[in-house]
């Protein structure tokens, strides 16, 4: 009976899904912009970023280790990651300044945009999208925005619009690695062609309309105009890609993944992300595990994940919650191991890839946004430490994001509310 969904939305026609895939996901971004600061001669230490975000946090007492620096004593959750201890850093006592609001803070996970209600209603660009904007044009997909269940994402455009997430592992695999039939390629090409001429008309319409309306509307119509231009660019770039064969991988499309088994979906998605990085199909990825995620298939768990996150300190609930959270973490760990095993030039794929795990909630039971869980691996940093900041007066996490940008060779001075690069990260 758990499977009955009385959602108001009627099912999406499968035809619509297929077509949709063609235009919104399969569009690489050929931005004319080049990085403001060219990479140094030896090349930037990192090339890629993967951000895994959780809507429901991680139970802090089980996560935060004792002691700090390199000699920290692993917490229960970190026990299973000890073989890759030197490949990631755990950060405690940090969060995004001015970000409040419990679940509504999800939009700020990667943008770190302060969201005091009333003060600002518009989000700012998320870390992954900022990276993709400057560096995403070299791959078929400038970025991948993924979700294990729903369509929401913490990835936002410069205009502050949320990028709808791909939540179907099978379709994701097809988009990345399965060539469309010639007939479908023709149709895609036609859609792109007609789309471009439509954009021509709409662009001048938005301009004409700006002259007709009041000054208050002009700014919003600017966003229209920008969107038209950006879509034009993407359609143009896609014309080049549409007939180019997709990379072949030695893996089968995921089959029979139960959508209600979030851990299984997380595993399938991360496997595809690994393949996407390996084939250089994309370099910037976010994967979100939403708050209504179902965790069927986990031994010893018979309640909803969200319900468990509101454990109210009840021991039985905490026990079940730990099973879920450990499984989530272990999949993240496996992903790191896989990247570490993949050679890339003189080093490994992990050396070139920054992998983050975080959440908008430090304490899901009370919807507290302070003390966000943070695990950060790879990317050529020196790891193996516990960076312990003040749990009462949090350290700004956007500093880590700024360091991540610098590691890609993007020498921004600030990101969101950052105050400088991350202390203790080198």
């Amino acid at each position, binding site marked *: 009976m*758990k499977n009955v969904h009385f959602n108001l939305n009627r099912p999406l026609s499968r035809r619509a899904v297929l077509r949709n895939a063609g235009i919104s996901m399969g569009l690489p971004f050929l931005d004319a912009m080049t990085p403001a600061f060219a990479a140094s001669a030896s090349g930037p230490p990192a090339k890629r970023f993967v951000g895994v975000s959780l809507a429901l946090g991680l139970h802090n007492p089980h996560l935060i280790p004792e002691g700090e620096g390199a000699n920290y004593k692993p917490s229960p959750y970190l026990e299973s990651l000890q073989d890759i201890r030197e490949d990631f850093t755990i950060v405690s006592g940090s969060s995004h300044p001015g970000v409040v609001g419990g679940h509504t803070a999800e939009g700020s996970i990667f943008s770190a945009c302060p969201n005091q209600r009333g003060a600002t209603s518009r989000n700012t660009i998320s870390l992954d999208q900022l990276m993709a904007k400057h560096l995403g044009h070299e791959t078929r997909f400038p970025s991948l925005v993924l979700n294990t269940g729903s369509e929401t994402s913490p990835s936002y455009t410069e205009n502050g619009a949320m990028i709808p997430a791909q939540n179907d592992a099978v379709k994701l695999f097809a988009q990345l690695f399965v060539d469309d039939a010639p007939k479908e390629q023709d149709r895609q090409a036609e859609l792109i062609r007609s789309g471009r001429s439509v954009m021509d008309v709409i662009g001048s319409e938005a301009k004409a309309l700006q002259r*007709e309306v*009041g000054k208050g509307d002009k700014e919003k119509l600017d966003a229209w105009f920008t969107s038209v231009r950006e879509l034009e660019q*993407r359609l143009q770039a896609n014309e080049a890609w549409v007939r180019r064969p997709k990379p072949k991988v030695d893996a089968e499309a995921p089959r029979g993944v139960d959508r209600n088994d979030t851990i299984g979906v997380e595993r399938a998605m991360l496997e595809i992300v690994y393949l996407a990085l390996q084939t250089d199909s994309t370099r910037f990825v976010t994967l979100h595990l939403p708050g209504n995620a179902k965790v069927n298939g986990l031994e010893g768990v018979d309640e909803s994940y969200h319900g468990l996150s509101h454990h109210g300190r009840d021991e039985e609930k905490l026990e079940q919650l730990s099973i879920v959270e450990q499984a989530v973490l272990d999949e993240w760990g496996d992903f790191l191991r896989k990247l570490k095993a993949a050679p890339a030039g003189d080093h490994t794929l992990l050396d070139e890839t920054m992998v983050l795990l975080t959440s908008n909630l430090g304490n899901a039971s009370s919807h507290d946004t302070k003390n966000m869980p943070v695990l950060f691996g790879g990317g050529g940093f020196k790891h193996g430490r516990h960076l312990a900041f003040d749990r009462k007066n949090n350290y700004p996490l956007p500093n880590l994001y700024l360091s991540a940008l610098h590691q890609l060779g993007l020498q921004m001075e600030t990101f969101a509310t950052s105050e400088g690069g991350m202390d203790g990260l080198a």
Partner: protein
Amino acid sequence: MNCFRSTYPVSKAARVLALAAPLVLSAAEEPDVRGQLEPLLSESCYDCHDDIESKSDLNLLDLEFEPGNPANFKIWERVFKRVESGEMPPEKKPRPDPDLKSAFLEHLESPLLAEDRAKKAAEGRVKVRRLTRREYEHTLHDLLGIDIPLQTVLPVEQETHGFETVASGQQFSHFNLARYLEAADLALDEAFQRATGEEETFSRTYPAFKLGKGGGGRGNYRGPQTKDKLSIAWPIRLPFYGRMPATSVPESGRYRITLKGVHSINAAAGAAWGTLSSGACVSNDPLLHGIGLVEATPEKRDLTYEAWIEKGDMLEMKPADATRKSAPTGAKGGNVGYEGRDLVEDDFEGIALKEIRIERIYPNGTVQEVRRNLFGDLSPEKVTKLSNPKADSEELLRKTIRQFADRAFRRPATDKQIAPYLDLALAETKGKRKPPMTGLRAAYQAILCSPRFLTFIEKPGRLDDHALASRLSYMIWNSMPDRELRHLADQGKLSERKVSRTQLDRLLDDPKAERFIASFTDQWLNLAEINFTVPDRRLYKSFDPTVQESMLMETRAFVGHLVASDGDIRHFVKSDFGMLNERLARFYGLDNVALKPGSGLQKVSLEEGRRSGLITQGSVLKVTADGTTTSPIVRGVWVGERILGLEIPPPPPGVPAVEPDIRGAVSIRDQIEKHRNSENCAACHAKIDPPGFALETFDPVGLPRAKYGSSKQAAAVDPSGVTPEGETFANIDEWKNIYLQKPDQLAEGFAKQLLTYATGATPTFSDRPALANIVEQAREKGYGTKSMIHLAVASEIFRTK
């Protein structure tokens, strides 16, 4: 707040003196507002809000008065409201002198009003609102006469101030635009196909023997039992139990489904409840789409449903009542078998039916209508000409595109406006040996991606007739104006009071007004969140999907009834009736209400009971809880913002959230009480907590409780409290009685919700007089819900951009 006057520390007294002196001199010319505000500020505010204390990050001592700066305006607006309502200075501080206070408010109000009015006159309150995806789908269905789902092609909407219609929070990016391109392509494919091709028809009846088996037990069998020419579904809890592969539909489409001769078997009391869904019903495509509830009584009845079903999907019908004992599967593995047992004899509650009929339907338009929508009044010969690549078609295209743009843009399209679309159509066909139809389709696709279609074009000041027609039509129908509204707008008559009154009544009387009830109610009360958490099955054994769906239906029907009957809005708080079905009445434990099983939702009288009113309905209690625990704060904020019209600011940064502890005797109330003792928190929590405390009487699924949990040590619920105005109440009933006496407050709150939803922006500071006017007239009309909709629509707020 960043406008410090001096970087040197100055004593408070010196600052006050320095300000007071020039005030006297210049008062005759340009009023020095900042100086006029000084007396009250220095008497009542600076103690906490100066450069040293800066409580809640507010330093009034150094705050300039610059209403032209939006951030500065916001702060002074908030100061005004909190002083006016008496929230500030807080209770524990001395009351300000009444004369000082009224002078302060007067001095502050007029410049704020002037500023806000000037801004509205220049820019309007609402900036480029676009169609929500719900509105988009209805609009394309009405514009083209098609039925295909389009909402799900578009990105999910985000809500702001509770509503997805609020323009300031609406997302727009190239991702949206790519989806619009796609959705338009899909919709036009469907429309052109229907207008020019063969209509797909389908109509079949499936007798019981085709729907299930008498025995089963192998081959992954999970269907119903066929017995005595009946198809019977039993309470077997296995995924996809009740699936009927024979019912798989040949094409995606909208279907009418009739379950014939439905009746209950062994129904303990009242009715047997089940769910009807569609889906692929296999484990690697497990999503089921709810079609409706099945209420079976001992008498045989035919039940009819309408739903969109995807190609290849089948129907699944099964009992769904968590309070009934479940039956064994009767076979090994994931199989169901009926051999060798008698489930009737074993007293399981089943749902039987005689046969199922499935027919393809096209509720939004016949082929003739689709043709007229695409080709206007072109004769069949001319439509044929559109398919001829050699035809000289410029005039034909111009005429057809104009007709279409005229409707899509919801106002007369000028030559200049249609020129780019005509050019596009010609470019698509000229010299390419393609028929004009191809060009027409390209032009339509562009029109459907135009900001003139996707957004509401409104100019600052009073809305013109066409903008008014759209506002009315989207408010009540979530779709474009129909012919009659459009005609009145073309004639310039719609803005006449009498005409718009009559039109509003007509819109509300139309079946399409259901859309208003559902979309407004769901957003206003946040009902979409009802799926967000799944209650703990160990603790809430009687809750199930049937109950949840019934709760949603109850609340929508309740609001719908109040609108239709012009019922008093005080019913939101307390009422003498409810809209229940048999399952919900049983869930609530209202065994003695007069209710006819088999009649679905029905109006029943609830004389004395905690169930009466909107705020104690299950849907509301469920969305304000998290599935496991309740939070008086979450519920208090919900009631405050959505029912009482309060503005509740978010907690200041750095305040630790209250973490629920369900282990022992420490109730969440105790924790909140501690929190409230902190002076920083007291002022807001005096507003938030009272209704939250009163509602603690209800658990996360909306059932009454006296204790937190069932253990002996469990803390008792204490639903008593004190309103911000100082009235005490012992429980939710008394709380309701207090607010029954405050209809003006309820009316203002409701008017704000209606206007935010309908216009796409919250009322601003200078809308206060118009709101007060609505409240005054509502009082004269007995606070009728429908009357209030009329008053909102007649107000300046509705009629200006």
